[in-house]
């Protein structure tokens, strides 16, 4: 989060506004990190266009004269650095973006999309620095084929049905009060305690924390029933509600 307190000449009123900014945290070795970034930008061209980016240097801890080079590297990739997040022993020259402190993690659809279904076990997800305050997302309309609902922190509640060929990816649990015919991935950010609940299971794929089960692998007895899916000793269990 960035806070800007513009001081206006006409009336002495301070206004605080908050904006959501992306934080990029470079890691050593820098060349590898830039290569990963290039691959990421290649997959999502135009992603950073017009988005405010804050550079978090607490991981890299670069020397003062390296920072300008890094910002130039990012500039070449069309990423404009609005501010730098660094602890006080990193000196920032006057030609660099200003220092920011006291950031809070933001949530919402503006966060980076991640592929939750890695093989067998989700790959190392970036560690969240502070505990999230999860929020739940309630969707009152049916989810159609081709739609993708991504809610990285918290539960997703769907009052209607989830069509075949759509997907829900949630950091927390997924509750579907209609028929679930699409794909549901709960605990996508590495939450093994997440569960999937649905009133009628016709799912193409259920996955919790990267462990998945396709329609083909499900017990026929769980199809068309009210079920919950959860992890038990690293096995995805699909149990019907009695």
């Amino acid at each position, binding site marked *: 989060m960035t806070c800007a307190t513009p001081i206006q000449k006409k009336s002495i009123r301070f206004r605080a506004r908050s904006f959501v900014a992306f934080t990029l945290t470079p890691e050593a070795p820098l060349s590898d990190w830039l290569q990963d970034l290039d*691959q990421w930008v*290649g*997959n999502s061209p135009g992603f950073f266009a017009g988005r405010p980016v804050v550079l978090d240097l607490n991981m890299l801890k670069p020397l003062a004269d390296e920072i300008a080079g890094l910002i130039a590297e990012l500039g070449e990739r069309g990423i404009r650095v609005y501010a730098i997040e660094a602890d006080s022993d990193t000196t920032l020259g006057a030609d660099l973006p200003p220092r920011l402190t006291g950031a809070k993690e933001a949530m919402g659809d503006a966060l980076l999309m991640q*592929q939750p*279904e*890695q*093989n067998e076990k989700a790959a190392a997800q970036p560690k969240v620095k502070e505990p999230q305050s999860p929020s739940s997302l309630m969707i009152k309309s049916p989810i159609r*084929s*081709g*739609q*993708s609902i991504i809610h990285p922190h918290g539960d997703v509640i769907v009052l209607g049905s989830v069509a*075949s*060929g*759509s*997907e829900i990816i949630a950091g927390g649990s997924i509750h579907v009060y209609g028929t679930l015919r699409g794909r549901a991935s709960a605990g996508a950010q590495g939450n093994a305690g997440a569960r999937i609940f649905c009133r009628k299971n016709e799912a*193409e*794929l259920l996955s919790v924390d990267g462990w*998945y089960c*396709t*329609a*083909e692998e499900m017990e026929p007895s769980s199809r068309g029933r009210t079920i919950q899916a959860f992890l038990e000793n690293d096995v995805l269990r699909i149990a019907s509600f009695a």
Partner: protein
Amino acid sequence: MGKVVVVTSGKGGVGKTTSTAALGAAVAKTGKKVALVDFDVGLRNLDLIMGAERRVVFDIVNVIQGTAKLSQALIRDKRVESLFLLPASQTRDKDALTEEGVGEVIDKLRSVFDYVFCDSPAGIERGAQLAMRFADEAVIVTNPEVSSVRDSDRIIGLLDARTMKAEQGESIVKHVLVTRYDAARASRGEMLSIDDVLEILSTPLLGIIPESQDILRASNMGAPVTLSETMNSAARAYIDAARRLEGEDFPVVVPFERKGFLDRLLGRRAA
């Protein structure tokens, strides 16, 4: 090195996906290793027609973006050992495909499989152009009616201009596959004749598939007609077309309407 065959048409609804599944299954039944690739990202259907929609975990977009290996995304058919499917993604769009990514995937498939069939999306935009980009041969699926033939002509122009083969100065091998041919309507002059179609497209004929209720039933059951109902006239026509695709040379028989004594007795069954 395998052969990459794109199944394309320009117009939608002429039977590209059905033909991809039927031809691929027919070739695989002869023991060849066959991969079917669904390029219709955002409107995938090939997995439904192959009856594999309940087994899709990863898709072509995951492979291109490096989140899954090709071997993880390929689904082996349960009926024919040597038949594999690479499904498309439903929740993304055609922009998720990159030319380099598609090229890499096709090259890998080419090195492993004898035949790679690419099911092109309808239209002449990016998706269709990516599907044909790396092909060695093309099957142009056409219905015997004016708009379909015109769109096929447009696609043939693209095949000769925009494919890698064309850009390297070679020419891509093209075949016309006439589908949904209704012998009764053709005999009444309500459809373009086969000769007209071939004259407009001036491309060799691969086969004529009669209009058949059984194809719809096979599609809904998730079994290509060449696997499920091999005695059916449409299935036989597809099996013959697959033999011609593999280089056999024998004449195409135009289906005609039999009006025998038995047919009058048993109701009308074309071809």
